[in-house]
């Protein structure tokens, strides 16, 4: 490979912009960390970028965890996210397999309906959905959230998994049929394991969206015991502002960021694949 002819000036500018953006991304997060360890006098009397004074106020974290029911927000978000991931991936995978492998008119129509739903603003359906869930007794239940999250995650899942199943070799399926496996047996023991990396990408992408979702969470849940993390933080923020509990507020923000950052660094590759697969091709 021939060395690139890049002039020194260009290289300096390029690196400078990259450094600047790194700072722009990381500094607000670092600032959150510093602020989460301060008390009110430090907020009022010191410059915002000063380091927190010793002793560091780790108690801000325990305070926000116990006083604001952070533990239950976490639990609710975990239950809702995991259930919705499982349901949406399962439903999307079964449908995608049929849509990818069995060609017929009605299937095409269905596929395009799923796709076009990705373009429609979800907020248009918010009001009717509220009354629908209300009639079914699902307002203020985690089940209600799981249902709406699953429904809204289906189009993306189907979009990615249909193209994924289309890429898998047909020969393996045919071999399974010859060995006497029926359609569903072939799907569950041959095709589904082969699609594993696609399923994980879809699951992670949907999971991140669901974990971070706010609007449906705030409209369909008004019992504080059932708040998910984003809803809890939004409510907490108003109260804390009023009580000037700034340190704990930043501790709460940080507590909610840490798990997604951990998940992100574990599943980085799948997330990048999910992003690329999800871009409308």
């Amino acid at each position, binding site marked *: 490979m021939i060395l690139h002819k*890049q002039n020194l000036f260009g290289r300096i500018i390029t690196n400078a912009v990259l450094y600047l953006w790194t700072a722009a991304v*990381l500094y607000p997060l670092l600032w959150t960390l510093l602020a989460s360890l301060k008390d009110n006098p430090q*907020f009022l009397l010191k410059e*915002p970028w000063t380091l927190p004074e010793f002793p560091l106020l780790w108690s801000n974290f325990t305070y926000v965890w116990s006083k604001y029911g952070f533990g239950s927000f976490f639990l609710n978000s975990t239950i809702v996210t995991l259930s919705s991931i499982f349901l949406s991936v399962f439903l999307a995978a079964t449908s995608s397999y049929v849509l990818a492998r069995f060609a017929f008119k009605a299937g095409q129509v269905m596929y395009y309906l799923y796709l076009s739903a990705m*373009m429609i603003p979800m907020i248009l*359906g918010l*009001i009717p959905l509220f009354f629908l869930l209300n009639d079914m007794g699902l307002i203020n239940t985690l089940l209600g959230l799981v249902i709406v999250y699953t429904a809204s995650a*289906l189009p993306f899942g189907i979009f990615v998994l249909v193209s994924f199943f289309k890429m898998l070799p047909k020969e393996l399926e045919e071999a399974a049929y010859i060995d006497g496996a029926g359609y569903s047996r072939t799907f569950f023991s041959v095709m589904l394991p082969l699609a594993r990396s696609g399923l994980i990408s879809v699951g992670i992408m949907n999971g991140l969206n669901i974990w971070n979702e706010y609007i449906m969470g705030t409209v369909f849940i008004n019992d504080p015991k059932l708040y998910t993390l984003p809803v809890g933080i939004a409510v907490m923020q108003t109260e804390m502002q009023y009580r000037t509990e700034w340190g704990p507020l930043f501790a709460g923000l940080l507590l909610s960021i840490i798990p*997604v950052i951990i998940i992100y660094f574990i599943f980085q590759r799948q997330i990048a694949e999910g992003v690329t697969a999800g871009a409308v091709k």
Partner: protein
Amino acid sequence: MSQQTRRNAFIAVFLLPTFLFFCLFALYPIAKGIHISLFDWSGSSKNKHFIGLDNFRELFNDPIIWTAIKNDYFLVVGKVIGIMLLATFFAIAVTRLRAAGSGFYRSIFFIPNIISVVVIGVLWRYVYNPNLGFLNSFLSLFSKEPVQLTWLGTENLAMWSLLWPSIWAGIGFYMILLIAAILSIPAELYEAADLDGASQSKQFWSMTLPLIWGQIKISILHVVMTTLNGSFIIVWIMTEGGPDNSTQVMGSYLYQMGFRQYHMGYAAAIGVLILTVSLITTLILQLLLNRDTTEMA
């Protein structure tokens, strides 16, 4: 059971439950939303008056909705320009320009994309806070007098203050898309260009850019759609549409009308407006962008 029956039964079992579920919880609410827009309805009472297109007539005479549309387009244009320029630059920088540590930048720049909009909104609300936030203190370093701007509370500044976190949070996603597009360009093309002595900028303008133009077009459409359909959340968290409705976007106005003031029919009409505006915008954009490629080809 015949082979054909078994096949049909399998298809039905695998497709229909999911499809019915999707129809009930996704398609039906959207259709019903259009229906509700024709009623005068508070949501809680039984009396629901059919008023035809009156909600839409009222909407067009509502000055707030015009501000909202203007603000939506401000965010659309600002985000398209800001995100596409930066994301393209970063994608080129970590692939073609071989900036050291490209994996590092890729990981770091994506972090804002995985954080909840609520957290991003609250975080930036405090960055902009005149007393607690670091922005004013930081700017004061460069001026003789201390900077005391109320970023979110000043009408002319508030929309710009909302635009920045929206760009900040969006870059990483599009950067990854463009990196994938650049990496799919065959390396031989660049080797040939190097042999011919083409400079970096020449390679960018006459090879990289035309070859990733398809992905850039898709990304622009994606920015536009997600902004029109979803950026009301960050508006709602950071300003609730204030001060004095100056940062209202269509979505936040819908939310306020529906779930704060209980004008469900009117809110549904705003929903129909959002749908119409995003469809028309996407259509026009597609025409513009496609014409553009035929000219380039």
